[in-house]
């Protein structure tokens, strides 16, 4: 079974704080993703990574950065948290399938609900 874990289920931070969200997967997946999910807006991709030390911007990267120092771990960093970053943050991973590149299933973690006051 694929397992994606996230460091916290709930987090409360103050405006201006630096926030780290950690994600770990145990299935040796190459691809890792960070999304945020908001009512009425659905899932939006923040950043993704295809390999260690590699990162790509998603649809809404502003205000966020990421780090991937090890294959199994992908961190999302809010450099200076703001109230509009209050959201549910979801991490996902997938395996590169060279024979079927359009069918790479993403597996999600349980989510971190972040409240910025």
């Amino acid at each position, binding site marked *: 079974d694929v397992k994606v874990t996230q460091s916290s289920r709930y987090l409360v931070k103050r405006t201006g704080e630096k926030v780290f969200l950690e994600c770990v997967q145990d299935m040796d997946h190459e691809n890792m993703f960070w999304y945020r999910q908001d009512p009425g807006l659905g899932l939006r991709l923040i950043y993704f990574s295809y390999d260690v030390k590699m990162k790509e911007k998603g649809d809404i990267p502003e205000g966020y950065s990421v780090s991937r120092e090890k294959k199994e771990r992908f961190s999302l960093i809010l450099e200076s948290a703001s109230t509009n970053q209050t959201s549910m943050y*979801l991490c996902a991973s997938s395996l590169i399938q060279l024979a079927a590149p359009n069918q790479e299933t993403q597996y999600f973690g349980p*989510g971190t609900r972040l409240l910025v006051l």
Partner: protein
Amino acid sequence: EDQVTQSPEALRLQEGESSSLNCSYTVSGLRGLFWYRQDPGKGPEFLFTLYSAGEEKEKERLKATLTKKESFLHITAPKPEDSATYLCARQGAQKLVFGQGTRLTINP
């Protein structure tokens, strides 16, 4: 870019009342179509991957089907524990494109 639209936004059924959820997209072509189930406050749980038109997959009371322009998630004789939001997503360039989801409620 591909757009994914799910309908209805919300669906309320009685226990045992079968129905279907729809997921349509704007760009045709051979790409993965994924269905997920999401319970409140939790991450999406993978259900199915479909790829070729005509493909069908089943899991318990759920059956997913795929045509060139849309996918259906059929739910047969649902139970209250099937209540959840069902998300579909289609493989785009380097990322998944998600629909807004259908919130399904099954009343006992």
